[in-house]
């Protein structure tokens, strides 16, 4: 019969010597290894008091950004949902009504926007797909919960606060090159045109 694996060993039922039979040298050897670890540098940290440094572009909890006037940037185009390999994102779009111009940047907005944090693998593809620079991953952790329903984060948990001081800074996630690239008038097609031709 052909061998199933190349790593199999043939066990030998050899008789143990006296030193092996009393086990003490083996036990002492094991304790020496344990003792050596007392004097080594500790790999664990005291978590709540001590915290590890986060990478500047750590991929944690998502945020839906507002623009400089406080209007939501997301237009519910659905590209993040298509890009998402874990299919964690769902959304329902709605039309902006008159008087809501300060709330939503464009005439279409996400009425419901949900990310299932249990499905999300924090790969950042949604951030990459977003044509409106609305969704970003932040260095915040996703909090635990007792029930599964609590992990489906809606707009209440995702959209950043209106208050300018409480906005979430994502400037670190954009490299110098990207920031410079966006200033160029040739790439300004992402901006919303508010000025009319004659004005």
């Amino acid at each position, binding site marked *: 019969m052909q061998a199933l694996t190349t790593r199999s060993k043939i066990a030998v039922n050899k008789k143990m010597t006296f030193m092996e039979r009393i086990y003490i040298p083996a036990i002492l050897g094991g304790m020496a290894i344990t003792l050596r670890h007392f004097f080594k540098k500790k790999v664990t940290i005291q978590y709540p008091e001590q915290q590890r440094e986060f990478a500047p572009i750590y991929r944690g909890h998502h945020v839906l950004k507002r623009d400089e006037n406080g209007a939501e940037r997301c237009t519910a*185009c659905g590209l993040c949902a298509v890009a998402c390999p874990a299919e964690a994102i769902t959304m329902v779009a709605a039309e902006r009504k008159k008087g809501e111009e300060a709330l939503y940047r464009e005439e279409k907005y996400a009425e419901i926007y949900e990310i299932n944090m249990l499905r999300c693998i924090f790969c950042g593809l949604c951030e990459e797909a977003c044509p*409106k620079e609305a969704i970003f991953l932040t260095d915040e952790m996703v909090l635990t919960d007792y029930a599964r329903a609590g992990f489906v984060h809606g707009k209440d948990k995702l959209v950043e606060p209106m208050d300018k001081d409480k906005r979430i800074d994502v400037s670190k996630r954009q490299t110098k090159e990207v920031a410079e690239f966006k200033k160029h008038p*040739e790439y300004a097609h992402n901006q919303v*045109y508010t000025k009319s031709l004659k004005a």
Partner: protein
Amino acid sequence: MAKVTIDGIEIEVPDGTTILNAARMIGGKTAPPAMCYYSKLKQTGGYCRTCLVKVAAGSTKDPRPMPKLVVSCSTPVQDGMVVQNMTSPEVLEARKGVVEFLLINHPLDCPICDQAGECKLQDLGYEHGLEKTRYEFGRRKFEMIDIGDKIKLTMTRCILCYRCVRVAEQLTDKRVHGVMNRGDVAEISTYIQNIVGNDFSGNVIDVCPVGALTDRTFRFKSRIWNVKPMDAHRDCKKCCGKAIVWYQGEEILKVSARKDQNDEVENFICNECRFDKKKTADWVIEKPTHIDDKSVIAQNHYEHLKELKMGHAHLVKKLPESNQPEQK
């Protein structure tokens, strides 16, 4: 009959055929793209200039090349004509310029546009266009005009192809909309903001190559790549009743007319079928609509489940007999 050579492929076509139609008979990449010409409507073509081709030899009698690029949609073929489309760098360069012109005033609001995914301008821009604009001025802006609760007009996206105007002229008995003003400020409008009430007015949605005229009953409901198209028909007294119904789950979100390989409507459908019949019970479902593999909406769209199964059976037969699954 006239013999023409397009991109090195020879074809014999009846006299009076345009270069574009001759190229479409060959098909594939040989057929130049067209944003305004519509074979199902009369007097279309000649506005957008996307179908420019080079005529390397005019005819057998007079084999001199034509001095400039010509619009293939309205230039008839002549015997012995030699045409270059994809094989001429001059044509590709000119087409790139045309795309740039078409995009000068286009708002590029694809993320909020319902046409995104089945938009001809998107495809054209992707194939021939530049990824940036050289235009530094503001884009056209229009006052929003309400043309009824079934059709949505977004004038900023319009490329003035006049297809919808021809539909209004030729399909409906009373023309209620057209192009107003001239040049830079030209716009599609209804006269004194009349409601487009004719039974076949909904077809302007299907003929519009961009998102200027969209289905208001589908507005922002879903994205086109999330809905599943199915060929369906129903008994309709006004039209042929053959359409495509777009499903999301068990709900029909949108009904549109069927399109041929040139992306032109096969049979125009009436407004009742298009806007009012949105229940599965109204329709007889035939099969999933064929969607070209190259289309962005072909993702997750399966048409040939039966063939897949047959293919699998074929593989099973190939296995040695000892590995065959037991058959009951």
